[in-house]
């Protein structure tokens, strides 16, 4: 029967329970901080492309100056008509986006609402039920309300769901809420209304049907998206308008926020601070433990154990701290994600990629701390025990 080496690292940690608890708390604290920072960053980025992901378009036309959905900019409608002439394009439609003032049905206070408007009979969304609902918005002044809006709209939503047609004001004009849909709020938009382009013309005095926010382009079956994108861009020949594939549109919007804005740096810096604090705590704990066991380590060396065996003890402690610190960090973060999602009305979701990232960072943090602590182990002189 083969016997493994004595798990001295684990035994040493478990022997000093209070010290072990502090070390676990340190690793967990760092893990939670990293999870939260990355969670906030991804929530910010993910909610930025919520609407993008709902659109049913193989290709979109956007203004080169557009930053996000709230600040999409605009381009001439004739570019859409030019795109319609490109081989492979089956249909095009204009999506208009305006950020306007309204009276919030929740508390009758004034606030901002993002209005998305398009031709009612155009199936502009991936969800067929939503397209069917939009198709009913033929009456001027009718709109759909996003149940994912931030704020306490419970009573209002129940009223609409029960079949009532409550009214509110958008830019001082009366609007009837005909139904509900679910997109979800973002940092930029608390609430969303879906309506027809004609209704937007009534609600927004500055509405110009010739200035399109997003152009939705649907392809005929069998055409390569990249080739058609290239063809459209060649036809447009415009420095202010660009065609992108749907995926590119989403990626570009995400990376614009993640890479080109200081937001990533701010949240990443928070994560780094968490790792530094965690490292300091773990180094302190492991160094104290090594210091306390110097006589035993020197004794082991005298008995014939190699330095590598003793370094293994410290690495074993690092591994134990990683495991025992990471699991509560993950559990606590999942709980906090739920609380925050409910509190701000935006989805804060845990991904496997993030779990593995934070696990990797925790392993690196503990291994680095162990490496710093083990310098003393290397220095343990077996002759000194005599």
């Amino acid at each position, binding site marked *: *029967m*083969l*016997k493994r*080496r*004595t798990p*001295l690292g684990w*035994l*040493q940690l*478990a*022997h000093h329970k209070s010290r072990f608890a502090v070390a676990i708390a340190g690793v967990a604290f760092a893990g939670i901080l990293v999870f939260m920072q990355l969670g906030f960053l991804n929530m910010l980025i993910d909610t930025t492309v919520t609407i993008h992901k709902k659109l049913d378009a193989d290709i979109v036309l956007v203004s080169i100056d557009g930053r996000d959905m709230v600040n999409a900019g605009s381009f001439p409608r004739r570019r859409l008509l030019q795109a319609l002439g490109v081989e492979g394009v089956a249909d095009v439609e204009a999506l208009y986006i305006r950020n306007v003032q309204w009276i919030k049905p929740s508390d009758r206070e004034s606030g901002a609402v993002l209005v998305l408007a398009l031709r009612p009979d155009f199936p502009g969304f991936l969800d067929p039920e939503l397209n069917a609902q939009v198709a009913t918005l033929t009456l001027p002044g009718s709109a759909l309300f996003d149940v994912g809006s931030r704020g306490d709209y419970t009573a209002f939503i129940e009223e609409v769901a029960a079949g009532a047609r409550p009214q509110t004001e958008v830019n001082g004009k009366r609007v009837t809420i005909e139904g509900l849909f679910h997109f979800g709020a973002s940092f930029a938009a608390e609430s969303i209304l879906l309506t027809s382009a004609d209704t937007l013309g009534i609600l927004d005095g500055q509405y110009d049907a010739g200035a399109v926010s997003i152009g939705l382009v649907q392809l005929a079956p069998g055409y390569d998206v990249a080739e058609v994108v290239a063809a459209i861009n060649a036809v447009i020949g415009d420095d202010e308008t660009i065609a992108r594939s749907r995926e590119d549109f989403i990626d570009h919007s995400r990376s614009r926020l993640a890479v080109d804005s200081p937001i990533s740096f701010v949240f990443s810096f928070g994560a780094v601070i968490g790792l530094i604090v965690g490292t300091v705590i773990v180094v302190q704990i492991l160094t104290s433990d090594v210091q306390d*066991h110097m*006589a*035993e380590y*020197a*004794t*082991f060396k*005298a*008995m*014939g*154990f*190699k330095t590598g065996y003793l370094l293994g003890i410290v690495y074993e402690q690092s591994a134990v701290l990683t495991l025992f610190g990471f699991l509560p960090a993950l559990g606590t973060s999942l709980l906090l994600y739920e609380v925050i999602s409910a509190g701000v009305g935006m989805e804060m979701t845990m991904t496997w990629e993030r779990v593995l990232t934070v696990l990797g960072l925790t392993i690196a943090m503990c291994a680095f701390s162990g490496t710093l602590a083990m310098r003393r182990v290397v220095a343990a002189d*077996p*002759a000194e*025990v*005599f």
Partner: protein
Amino acid sequence: MQTSETAILAQGVSHWFGKGALRQQVLFDLQLEIAKGEVVFLMGPSGCGKTTFLTLIGALRSVMQGSIALFGEELFGASAAQQVLTRRKIGFVFQNHNLHRSLTLLGNVMMGLEAKGLNRLPDAKTRCLAMLERVGLQEHAHKRQAQISSGQRQRVAVARALVSDPPLVLADEPTAALDRKTGHDVVALMRQIAEERGVTVLMVTHDNRVLDLADRIVEMEDGRIVEATADPPIDSRSLHSMERIESE
């Protein structure tokens, strides 16, 4: 001269500490031969160099000048890795037992096997328990060092040193922290087990109360061997004889 019966042969061993102007010689041309199975006590006043000599014999320091051969294996010029391999053939008993606090007594004795890679043997645990029984501590096998007395801890250290059946045991002041009777009991036990197994013992001590247990006493002073006594002093030998009569 090295023979097949020689356990330790030290010839012309000198040693220095420090560097440059601070370099100081602490051992001077030491000559010592210890036969296999012999129990030798190395005595002398504090600072005379006996522990330094012991660490050289134990391959815990590199031999600077002269020759030390353990069972014919030369330590002068040995690499760090060779020193580790040599140490695995030696059982060490320290002044401060240096038991591992988070291990049970059984776990500590097991480390004596693990250091030599013998913990993988199927009878490793049985062997450790038998050794603990031999030192009278089997019923305490699952206790930790904080739960037993100083004398019992030193017995565990003896068990840890001997469990792997090393041909040589080096002990450094193992009775220093023990009272007279306990100290004598521990060394007597170590000697008894060594005799049973044919183990050579070299023990540094300045404890006159255990001299009766030595086959030979080597005296050191100011880094030199000044006297090698073939037999222990009469009064100590009387005490040893009396105890043997009692045990019989």
